[in-house]
């Protein structure tokens, strides 16, 4: 990117950036920072915007281009507001500050970035100073930050405060001549950082700068620090902005769920079709060890809920043989939700895999060493995130982990069980093929559904469902864990969790219904269901129970809304099909009402137990 892209061409920016090497991104960021977000939105009103209020101790203007480019890499438009110099304490402490008014006006995900640097400590050391003095200042600073985080949590509902650990400059440690004193400073400094990292609030994210510095990024340039009060280098701020980009992507509901791997030169070295199972490089030899290391990391991701699949240009039998019998393999067939070894284009395989898993291809990450295959997938399926693997397998792990594709705010037990559930789904598909009709299948499936107020331990999972569910999501209103907690505490609202099971096993918590009582009207604020289980009657049975509950609790009518997105078109007819009348409808969505004169259609093959948790709502 060597010129300012016109606002009208925003949709092509993400693809352009995907082709750029890291060292070309700062330049692209400086161009993107000059784009007026209002103009982009005028040309493309559906562009997701993330609001970022940047405050801190030093000069942080370099974050504007860095955030612009890192968010654009995920298709997100950064709305950046830069606070006055060194205003972070005032910004966070005063509920009427510019920070809170700006975040309060944000339409989508909103973040306050309080960028901390070692200067907040160094500036308060008395002359002369000892390790004790530094420990005291550090303790006071972290205590202050903890208080500010509490104010933030109480004031900026739904927004996220991003803090960071403090790099420890040698210019400080080396000023202490006594070896024990110097070590004491190092220990106190790490303790302060550890306290920051332990700030366990759903509204707070702490970016740990240590792993970024360990990659060889310079933390500070004394000249920039002394003359321009820029206490962190542009390079470090760029790496920090990348981490913020990952947080923004999660908050915008763009989580990735599936990792699709090529096999030859990705999972093992060499070409199976030419070298044969004995000739591939895995477990042994320099390259073989590098591939094994990569396989272990893939397994590690799989253990945390990432669905792993393989798409390889190979004959199916030798691939199955290697996954089953090769003594050096770490990954086995049971680690994959599907293995597609054939000679058809990879983008066709990805599209079919998405259909089988009932997921959008946009939730896929595709890793391949072949530039040809990557280019083709990028062109045919622009929503897929493509990981550029090279001919150097020792770099595969770094490439895979570079963009935190699968990061989540909180991992739930559902996440860990997900791969097994999808494998059960394969078994269900086999079972389905034995029936003439879907009804016969559903009757034999023995689906049980439990609808009940979400208990406190389930609220994170409910938030996650609002963030990750795109298809069966009637309003696509994303809710942070804190917002779900607020709803659960609201006496006029109710957060109901949908759990289900069938003869193949537990599905766990698969959906949520958000209700609000407004006088004689019961409002369904949102209805969400995991794509794993819809179209089996669960949604009709649950909505029927809500209607029954409305009637039994003397509601006059039930109201519900549908808000259209690019992904939820298939549920546009959900309410009308259940007997709701349309109050009004336009391109953006529709409002419905059910007058409760006719009972809902029964769903005979579902055994449902419903508990609405007392009289209200």
């Amino acid at each position, binding site marked *: 990117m060597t010129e300012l892209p016109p606002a009208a061409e925003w949709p092509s920016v993400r693809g352009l950036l995907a082709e750029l090497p890291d060292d070309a991104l700062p*330049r692209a960021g400086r161009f993107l920072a000059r784009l007026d977000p209002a103009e982009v939105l005028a040309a493309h009103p559906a562009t997701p915007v993330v609001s970022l209020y940047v405050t801190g101790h030093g000069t942080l*203007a370099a974050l504007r281009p860095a955030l612009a480019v890192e968010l654009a890499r995920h298709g997100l438009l950064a709305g950046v507001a830069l606070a006055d110099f060194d205003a972070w304490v005032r910004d966070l402490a005063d509920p009427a500050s510019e920070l809170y008014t700006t975040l309060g006006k944000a339409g989508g995900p909103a973040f306050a970035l309080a960028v901390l640097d070692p200067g907040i400590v160094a500036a308060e050391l008395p002359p002369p100073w000892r390790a004790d003095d530094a420990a005291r200042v550090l303790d006071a600073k972290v205590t202050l930050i903890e208080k500010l985080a509490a104010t933030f949590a109480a004031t900026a509902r739904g927004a996220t405060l991003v803090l960071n650990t403090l790099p420890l400059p040698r210019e400080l440690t080396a000023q202490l001549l006594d070896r024990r004193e110097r070590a004491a400073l190092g220990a106190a400094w790490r303790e302060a950082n550890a306290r920051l990292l332990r700030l366990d609030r759903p509204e707070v994210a702490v970016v740990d700068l240590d792993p970024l510095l360990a990659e060889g990024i310079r933390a500070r340039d004394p000249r920039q620090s002394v003359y321009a009060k820029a206490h962190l280098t542009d390079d470090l701020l760029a790496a920090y902005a990348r981490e913020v980009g990952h947080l923004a992507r999660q908050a915008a509901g763009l989580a990735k769920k599936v990792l699709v791997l090529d096999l030859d030169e990705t999972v093992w070295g060499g070409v199976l079709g030419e070298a044969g199972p004995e000739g591939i490089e895995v477990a042994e030899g320099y390259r073989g060890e590098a591939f094994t290391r990569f396989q272990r990391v893939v397994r590690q991701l799989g253990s945390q809920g990432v669905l792993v699949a393989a798409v390889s240009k190979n004959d199916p039998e030798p691939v199955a043989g290697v996954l089953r019998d090769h003594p050096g393999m770490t990954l086995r067939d049971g680690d994959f939700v599907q293995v597609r070894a054939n000679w058809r284009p990879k983008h066709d395989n990805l599209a079919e895999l998405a259909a089988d898993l009932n997921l959008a291809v946009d939730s896929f990450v595709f890793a391949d060493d072949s530039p040809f295959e990557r280019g083709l997938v990028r062109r045919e399926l622009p929503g897929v995130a493509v990981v550029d693997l090279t001919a150097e397998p020792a770099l595969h792990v770094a490439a895979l982990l570079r963009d935190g594709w699968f990061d989540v705010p909180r991992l739930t037990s559902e996440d860990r069980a997900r791969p097994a559930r999808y494998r059960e789904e394969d078994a269900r598909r086999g079972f389905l093929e034995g029936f003439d009709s879907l009804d016969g299948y559903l009757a034999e499936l023995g689906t049980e559904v439990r609808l009940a107020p979400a208990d406190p331990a389930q609220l994170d999972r409910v938030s996650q469902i609002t963030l990750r569910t795109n298809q069966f999501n009637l309003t696509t209103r994303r809710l942070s864990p804190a917002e779900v907690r607020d709803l659960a505490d609201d006496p006029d609202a109710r957060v109901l969790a949908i759990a289900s099971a069938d003869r193949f096993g537990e599905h766990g918590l698969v959906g949520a219904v958000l209700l609000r009582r407004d006088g004689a009207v019961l409002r369904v604020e949102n209805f969400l269901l995991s794509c794993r289980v819809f179209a089996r009657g669960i949604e009709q049975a649950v909505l029927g129970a809500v209607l029954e509950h409305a009637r039994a609790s003397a509601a006059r009518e039930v109201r519900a809304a549908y808000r259209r997105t690019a992904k939820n078109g298939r549920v546009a007819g959900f309410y009308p099909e259940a007997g709701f009348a349309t109050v009004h409808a336009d391109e953006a969505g529709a409002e419905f009402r059910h007058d409760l004169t006719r009972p809902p259609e029964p769903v005979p093959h579902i055994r449902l137990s419903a508990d609405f948790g007392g009289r209200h709502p």
Partner: protein
Amino acid sequence: MISVEEYVALLRDELALPVTEDDLGRSLDTVDAWDSVHLLTLCTLLERRTGRPVPFARVLEAPSLVAVYELATTS
């Protein structure tokens, strides 16, 4: 070393500033799209390009882009 033409190209392509050679002598606050933070980035870019240190403190006081160029190219 870096020629004046290369310097203008760096300002346009790397710093994303819509300037020409005619703008170099203008007072910085009248340069289109100029922001004081550009000076910091410009120092870094010039050091990377020329392989020699730029006198930061003096650059921060420079009145124009041509003054920055002179500081970066004369020892």
